[in-house]
């Protein structure tokens, strides 16, 4: 990872996202190989790494009897104290309920406490496992804003997700993991350039026959239902658009799933071989 970037960590369930993150924090140890975090070995330098890292576990658990404030006080004490103003600002930003017992809080409100504890000591590196789970859209938005502020200060974010749209909106680069192996690490720009694009087109009259379109270079799929065409293609859209120009095109839509396509493509390759 590069300092100051947001790296999105994607992969199907069970691919090894959480395992990787827990390994970086020395919660589990590698059977072979090693990991380096902030220049230190993940095992030997673990305490120093954990001092400089903020972690949000995927299945966050807190003491149900404590209030949010007492829980955060405890976690702050484990770090030898944090700047109270930072904590309070985070609580305000997320509209967190600090004074109710944790067992009374909804999943989303517990998740807010998880975010506060990960950010409150202003760590150099944030490792966030499924951070937006359970957050409402407004809180998601302020979380995204926080991520951008954090990276603007030169701090680094490593976040996993299966909500692809989340990564798409904030990540500078994405890493896709499949069956414990990293299959690609690249910028979203580059991934989009190689992505399969998908178009949905409505025609005033008949749609062009699917088999004609499938003969065009780059076209991978074409499905026609009455006057509606769905087509998926790689690379330039030029020949496809020119072929469609002979027909009476009424509407063109692109389903908002660029990254989904990238993700599924890497995922499917597993099944192919």
């Amino acid at each position, binding site marked *: 990872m590069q300092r100051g970037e947001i790296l999105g960590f994607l992969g199907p369930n069970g691919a090894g996202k959480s395992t990787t993150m827990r390994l970086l924090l020395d*919660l589990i140890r590698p059977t072979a190989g090693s990991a380096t975090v902030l220049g230190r070995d993940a095992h030997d330098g673990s305490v120093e790494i*954990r001092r400089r*890292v903020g*972690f949000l*576990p995927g299945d966050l*658990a807190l*003491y149900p009897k*404590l209030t949010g404030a007492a829980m955060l006080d405890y976690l702050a004490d484990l770090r030898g104290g944090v700047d109270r103003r930072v904590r309070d600002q985070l609580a305000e930003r997320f509209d967190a309920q600090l004074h109710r017992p944790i067992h009374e809080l909804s999943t989303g409100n517990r998740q807010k406490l998880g975010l506060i*504890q990960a950010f409150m000591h202003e760590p150099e590196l944030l490792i966030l496992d499924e951070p937006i789970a359970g957050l409402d859209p407004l809180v998601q938005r302020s979380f995204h804003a926080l991520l951008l502020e954090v990276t603007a200060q030169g701090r680094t974010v490593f976040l996993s997700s299966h909500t692809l749209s989340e990564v798409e909106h904030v990540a500078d680069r994405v890493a896709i993991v499949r069956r414990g192996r990293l299959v690609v690490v690249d910028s979203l720009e580059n991934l989009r350039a190689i992505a399969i694009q998908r178009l949905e087109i409505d025609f005033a009259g008949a749609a062009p026959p699917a088999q004609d379109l499938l003969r065009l270079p780059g076209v991978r799929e074409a499905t026609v239902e009455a006057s509606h065409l769905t087509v998926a293609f790689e690379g330039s859209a030029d020949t496809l658009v020119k072929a469609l120009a002979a027909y009476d095109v009424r509407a063109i839509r692109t389903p908002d799933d660029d990254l989904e396509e990238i993700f599924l493509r890497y995922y499917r390759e597993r099944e192919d071989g």
Partner: protein
Amino acid sequence: MLPTLRIAVRLRLVTTLATTMAMILVILMVGALFPSVGDSIGRLDVPKGVAELLGGADYGSLTGWMRSEIGAVYGPLVIAAVAIIAAVGSTAGEEEEGILALELAHPITRSRLILAKAAAVLAAVLTIALGTFLGLLAGVAVGGGGVAASNLAALSLHLALFGCAIGALALALAAATGRRTLASGGAAGFAVLAFLINGFAPLVHGLTWLKYVSPFYYYTGNDPIGYGIDIGHLAVLAVASIVLTAIAVVGLGRRDLRK
């Protein structure tokens, strides 16, 4: 380490204090009962094995009454239960819930964390033992007196170290495996087995030596309420507690956290 100890004590404070109060009240009632039943029961005519299990079953004196009613079963039962629940809950229990992983994502070593949790178990055990001592003082007073306070303190101290040993065993099992059910079942099972071994082993020819593996032997073997503390026996329980706590530290240190 201190914050973890503080929070672990705080999370069990109400339970520990309630158990301690219950202990005091029960002993007080047992003491109050003695003047009316002590003379009529006297020495129960029960098989020797059962009498051994009941701490001699000598109900004719207040010392024997307290030895059997509190020292033999009730005291160790309560303190073992408190120690096992506290030790397993704060380690394997929190690991299964996922809280341990969050704590260990903070700059604290695993050994410090487990020692802090062990110290909280110790605090709970000492509180119960103190309650036992206060209860015995009050119970003996209402039962007619005549038992030296130093002997009551001796029983309570032996009880405390017995609780430590059982708690440390539970801690070692919990830290080494991360499994709540296995650890509490294993420690409780051992405690029951140790109770039976201590009662029956001396009666079986050739198995007498078996009593030396039972913490009950070091707890009551030389009758602290009758004869005061036995430094050697206390030392055995203390060393066992320390060794088992060290095993807990090593056990957690080398393992992947399950959740």
